C-alpha cells in the first residue's frame, strides 16, 4: 500500500496491511511531529508533495526494497497538509520472514524516502515564523541520484 493522504494516519491500519502468515516479523516506523529541535519550539508543520512524482518514487522504492530483501508485504503512507504536534507524518511498515531483514529494509526505506521522494516540510515555529526545511541547499550537497 502506497499512499499520500491529507487525513490522519491510522497506524493500526498500516500494520494490518502488512500482516501475513508468511511473516514472522513486522517492523513499523512512524515519523511524528516533535515539539523541540534544540532550543527552537515547533508549533506545527506543513507538508507539501509533488504528488505524481512522489508516488512514482515510492513505487520505485518498493521495487528496490523487494529486490534487496525477502519482503512479504510493504506499506508506505505519507501525510500532506498541516500537522499538529504529535501527529504522524509518515508510516513505513515491512513484514518479512525474520526480523533482521525487516529492520534493515524499514530503515533503508525511511533513509532513502527522505532523500529522494519530493515531499517538503515547512516549520511553523512557536513565534509564528515559517521556514522551509531544505537541508541540501548548500551546493556542495550531492543530488539524490548517482552522478
Amino acid at each position: 500500500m502506497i499512499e499520500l493522504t491529507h487525513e490522519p494516519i491510522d497506524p493500526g491500519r498500516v500494520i494490518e496491511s502488512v500482516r501475513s502468515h508468511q511473516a514472522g516479523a513486522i517492523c513499523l516506523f512512524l515519523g511524528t511531529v516533535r515539539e523541540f529541535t534544540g532550543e527552537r519550539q515547533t508549533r506545527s508543520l506543513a507538508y507539501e508533495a509533488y504528488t505524481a512524482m512522489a508516488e512514482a518514487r515510492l513505487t520505485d522504492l518498493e521495487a528496490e526494497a523487494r529486490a534487496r530483501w525477502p519482503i512479504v508485504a510493504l506499506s508506505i503512507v505519507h501525510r500532506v497538509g498541516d500537522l499538529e504536534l504529535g501527529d504522524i507524518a509518515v508510516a513505513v511498515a515491512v513484514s518479512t520472514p525474520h526480523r533482521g531483514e525487516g529492520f534493515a529494509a524499514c530503515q533503508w526505506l525511511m533513509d532513502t524516502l527522505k532523500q529522494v521522494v519530493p515531499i517538503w516540510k515547512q516549520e511553523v515555529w512557536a513565534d509564528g515564523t515559517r521556514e522551509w526545511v531544505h537541508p541540501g541547499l548548500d551546493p556542495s550537497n550531492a543530488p539524490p541520484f548517482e552522478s
Partner: protein
Amino acid sequence: MRLSIQLFALARDKAGRSVVPLELPDGANVADLRAALAAGVPALAPLVPVLLIAVDSEYARDEVVLRPESQVAAFPPVSGGTAGGVA
C-alpha cells in the same frame, strides 16, 4: 518549444507562482532550462544552481534533453531528515 515548469516549496515562494512558462529552443537540455529559469525569474536566480530538476517524474541531470511534451518541475532538495520537527 514552450514548457510549463512546475515549482514547489521555497522555489514557488521565491518565484511567487507555482508554474512558470518558458520558451526554449528545440534540443534544449536541463542546463539550458536552468539558464532560462534564472533569466526569466530573477528572484529565483540565486537558487537555480541548487534546484533539482525533474523530467517526467525522474530526477534529471543537466545533459538530459527536453522535448515539447516533457513534464518539468523545479524544486529545492527534499527535507532530508537532518533538521527538526520529524525524525
